[in-house]
């Protein structure tokens, strides 16, 4: 008959303890999320309506809807993605697949990590200097989106690079021995297996871009502009700035209004993420090793 030794029993106890501890930590993570959502829904939901989403703000932003800000945020995020995803993915492909391991490569990698740590207000000042003034885009969607793109570029690069590196090296070697070039290997084997991780980076970028206020405040977001922009060279309202303005700058705003805006802001993030999350789920189901 097998008899558990004292050591066996002790290990089993530790095992149970660790499992409970990890579960506890994970559950603790959910608490703040639920609290934030709970407060927002409790206070903001009554003010939410279809009109709120489709009408312009009225009476010094104390009434009416958030339509221009909503559309402005969507435009800012999309233009920022258009700029940062191609550049970021290309840079990550270079760093992961082509770059030799030299001091220059290490310097670039170090620079990317440091860039990720730069506060967003510094990016804002950079955006003003570079896009608004030097390139002459003026305060516009283009300048604001490019500022956001520069700010989120490190996130895209790092997450893409890591998901490319996670593809086993043997796959590349097997492909190379068949006579494939590096690019053929990347296109046929590496990218299809890294795409789900790359999309995760894009989701992170969207979430961060939607919420940022400082980088767009001086570069393209308007305080109050109750109509839609006509081109990327126009200014626009944005939800993050709108939320900041009505909660701190405008007198006599009904209490529910900022909560409703915040709720809508989170909804935008969720909707924009939903598409890529769904895409990712489909891809993960096809994950092949």
């Amino acid at each position, binding site marked *: 008959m097998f008899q558990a030794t004292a050591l066996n029993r002790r290990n089993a106890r530790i095992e149970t303890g660790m499992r409970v501890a990890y579960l506890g930590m994970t559950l603790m993570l959910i608490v703040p999320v639920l609290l934030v959502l709970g407060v927002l829904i409790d206070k903001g939901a009554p003010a939410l309506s279809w009109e709120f989403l489709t009408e312009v703000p009225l009476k010094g932003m104390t009434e009416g809807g958030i339509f221009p800000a909503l559309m402005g945020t969507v435009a800012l995020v999309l233009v920022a993605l258009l700029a940062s995803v191609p550049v970021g993915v290309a840079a990550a492909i270079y760093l992961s697949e082509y770059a*030799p391991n030299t001091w220059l490569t290490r310097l670039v990698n170090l620079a990317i990590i440091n860039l990720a740590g730069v506060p967003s207000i510094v990016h804002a000042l950079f955006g003003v200097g570079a896009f608004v003034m030097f390139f002459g885009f003026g305060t516009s969607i283009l300048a604001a989106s490019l500022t956001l793109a520069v700010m989120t570029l490190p996130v895209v690069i790092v997450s893409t690079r890591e998901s490319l590196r996670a593809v086993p090296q043997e796959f590349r*070697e*097997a492909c190379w*021995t*068949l*006579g494939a070039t590096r690019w053929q290997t990347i296109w046929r084997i590496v990218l299809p297996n890294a795409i789900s991780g790359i999309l995760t980076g894009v989701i992170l970028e969207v979430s961060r871009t939607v919420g940022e206020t400082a980088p767009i405040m001086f570069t393209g977001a308007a305080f109050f502009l109750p109509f839609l922009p006509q081109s990327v060279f126009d200014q626009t309202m944005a939800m993050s700035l709108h939320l900041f303005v009505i909660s701190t700058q405008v007198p006599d705003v009904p209490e529910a209004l900022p909560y409703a805006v915040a709720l809508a802001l989170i909804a935008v993030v969720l909707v924009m993420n939903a598409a890529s999350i769904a895409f990712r789920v489909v891809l993960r189901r096809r994950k*092949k*090793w």
Partner: protein
Amino acid sequence: MVAAVLAESVAGDAKIVVKKFSVHYGAYTALSGVNLAVARNEIFSIVGPANAGKTSFLRVLNRMDALTSGMRYEGTVRFDGHDIRKWRNLYALRRRIGVVFPLPVGLPLSVFDNVAMAPRLRGVRHRDELEEIVERCLRRAALWGEVKDRLTALGSLLSGGQQQRLTIARALSQDPELLLLDEFSIAIDPVTTMKIEDVLLELKKEMTIIMVTNLVQQARRISDRMAFFHKGRCVEVGETAAMFDGDVRDEQTLDYLRGRFG
């Protein structure tokens, strides 16, 4: 002496000629002192204990050193008389060389796509033609019967031995002139191994085969000539039959071949 004479005797119609060859990883020398020639349409086997530099040798033949950071080789390797160091399009060189790794690497693609990859890379587009190539290669690798109904399944879902035969089929799909096999049988059962050995004997009519093996008896069964690598050196090269009969320069070789090593 014997080795040098043999190297000279095949040099006239050699597929591969290697001279004053050594492989280095950074400052570390993994293999040195290799001078040998492999004749067209022969099976040449390389035996030797672990860490002898056998895999390193194969990797240079298809110029994987160019894709491995820190790896380089010295000396010359001639493929059909052309120095592979001066070969401008390495992809074209690799397309002529099929490789089978010790552990099967099924690419994360379907069985069909695994085998169709090389033909596609060289521009074959027609479905009929691809199907014909895939079937022929799978048959040759003794795998067709087992996978003909699951060509769309993932290659990596096959059993270990099936995956290994899949990689053999994939190597054959290149229509290689030179086939490099690195311990191809470690993941395969003895019956299938025998089948594949028969296939190799067939294949050598069309191509040259260099095979690294840990199974001395496998080298004896199918190779025409062989080399013994030990501790990063090529100890000797000779006719397989003669070496097993005891015609060796170095006692170590015979000890290894007779299983009295270490």
